[in-house]
Each structure stands twice: as C-alpha cells, then as structure tokens.
C-alpha cells in the first residue's frame, strides 16, 4: 500500500510501486484530466505537480510519489480560476484541447517562479509541451495575460 496526497486528499494506493503515476491518477483515482500522450516523457501531456515540480507522470513511478504532494489539473484551483486557467479561457487557447492540462500545469510552475516572464522565459519553460494543433502563439499570449492577472490579484499560486 502506498500513501500519496493528491489534490489535498490523502489516498491509499494498492498497486505495484513501479506503476506509472499517470495510471494511478487516471485509472485508479479516476482523475482523467491528465492525459496520456507519448508514454516516454517526450510530449508533456501528462504533466502534474509533484511537490510543486512539473513532473511527467507517465515516467514517474508511484514509489517516487509516496508521501509526497501531487496536484493534477483538477486540483490546480478550487473554481477553475487559477490565473493561467482564466487566461486560457480568455484567449481561447485550446483547439483540440488534448495537451492543455499539461500546458497549463507547466505554465503554472513558470508563473510561480517568475511573475513577469519574457518570451524567452516562456519558450524555455514551455519547450517540453508539444501541441499538435500548433496553438503556441496563443499559449504565449495567454501566459502573458496570466502573468498580468496574477500581478493584479497579487496572488502567487
């Protein structure tokens, strides 16, 4: 039995400690906002926060998450009102939407560490999140807006 805290709730997981965290999140806990993309840490669709870091859950074993704090897209904010989520909505960023929970989770880490990112900072932070619809320009625009919203709110989520 492995104990993890996911979106603030402690969970006992009865699974092989080598199971990818992504399977635990999706198949065992039913939190399907996090997506499976490539399975080899190449695309970023499965990004979740592990103690605040934007880890790729497809290659992160359950054992690494033991006793740690996990946040998925479902737990990023209580009312889908994290500045990144608000900006994503405002800019209508997604096209098919498949990669966007990963994109948003990565962007949230960027804005937590840098409240006023330059385009170079955005590129550096987001280079590991692939969007096959090519929404990159809107992603960049939304991150700039999210930074602005965050500064206005004075929050630092």
């Amino acid at each position: 039995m492995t104990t993890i805290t996911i979106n603030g709730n402690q969970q006992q997981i009865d699974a092989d400690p080598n199971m990818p965290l992504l399977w635990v999140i999706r198949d065992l806990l039913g939190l399907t906002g996090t997506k499976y993309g490539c399975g080899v840490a190449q695309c970023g669709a499965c990004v979740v926060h592990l103690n605040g870091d934007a880890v790729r859950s497809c290659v992160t074993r359950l054992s690494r998450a033991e006793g740690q704090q996990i946040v998925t897209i479902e737990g990023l904010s209580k009312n889908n009102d994290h500045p990144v989520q608000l900006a994503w909505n405002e800019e209508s960023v997604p096209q098919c939407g498949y990669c966007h929970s990963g994109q948003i989770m990565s962007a949230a880490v960027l804005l937590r560490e840098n409240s006023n990112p330059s385009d170079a900072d955005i590129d550096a932070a987001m280079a590991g999140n692939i969007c096959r619809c090519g929404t990159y320009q809107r992603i960049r625009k939304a991150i700039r807006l999210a930074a602005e919203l965050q500064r206005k709110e004075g929050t630092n989520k």
Partner: protein
Amino acid sequence: MNRPMKEGTNYDLPIRAFAVTGILLTAIGIMASGLHSSDKNETAPASPVYEIKRDSITSLKAFKQVYKVLMSPRCMNCHPSGDIPLQGEDSHLHTMSPQRGSDGKGVYAMKCSNCHQPTNTPGLHTPPGNPNWHLPPADMKMVFQGRTPRQLAEQLIDPKRNGNKDIKKLIAHADDGLVLAAWNPGEGRNLPPLSHADFKRAWITWLTTGAYAPK
C-alpha cells in the same frame, strides 16, 4: 656505559619503525601492482593516500585513455559547450531544448528531474535516470565539448575550472554517482569506450604521474 646503550636504543626505534613500514609498503605495492597491471606506473594504490611520481610518458599515455572516455557521449553529453545538454551517440542538442539554469538542474517546468527519474526508465529511448541528474552549474560549466586533449587536461586540474577540486577530490570524483551512471546508461545507449575500472585506473595514473597535458 648505560648512556650509549640508551642513545642506541633511542635511535634504533625509528630505524626499526622505518624498516617495518618500508617492508609493509613494499608488500602492499607488490600486491597492488599484481592486482592491476604489470606497469607499476599504471597501478592504483590500495590506500587512499596517493603519491605523486612525475612521469610524463606514463601520464600522457594514461590521459589518452581518459580523454577517450570523457569525450564519449556518455560523459560529454552533459558537459556541453552551450546551455542545452546533448543527446544520443551523435551528441545532438537535447530535444525540447532543456536549459542548464543557474544550478545546472534546469529551469521552471523544464527541470532535469521532471523527466529523469532516480533510476533508468525501462524501454528504448526513454529517459536515463539518476537521483542527482544535472549539468554543471552556470558559474562552473566544466565544458568537455570541443576541447582539445591539451585544453581538457589543463581544465581538469585547474580548481578554478574543475569545481574547486584538488587531486584528492578529483580522484574521488571517479566514483561519483553521476560519473558511474555513464556505465549504466539505459537501454539502447553505448557504454564509454573503457570499463569503469580501466577508466579509473587511467584517471588515477594520469593524476598521480603529474597530470601532464598533451602538446
């Protein structure tokens, strides 16, 4: 009459001690050379105390081996000349362009450990793992890529460019966890051209024979 005897006794003690130590050291030396190599200059001493015996020929010969390993993808890929690590047997820029960051551990959502787990991920072309995966930090880049043998040799023994390491620390670094990871690279990746034992022997030989830099 007693006096000379006393004096004699006093002098004899250190002589005996030296003689015994000498015999022991010789015995250890013979055992060590038997374990490693017929060439006494290529022998790693059994004790962690290393004596420097300057020998340019042996030193340069050893460095040739050291250079081959350090310039192999398993070592050089994480000692790039730029701020993006390298990948693969052809040492191309790491896909998705992760950046060094000030501490060498990446930036924002692109930290090394976000993909590189504490152990290798199973399967071909999956991220190799180590609990301490990182590049050298931004203020001490320790670049291997593009260095000539002479440049690399000079850099390796310069504390201002080698991470403030003296010879003792350099020797210990051969057993660093991330250095050892080169010999456990994950599926589908070539090993360095020497075994770790042979590399370590060449490394110590190079350092203990004067760490000569090739011309």
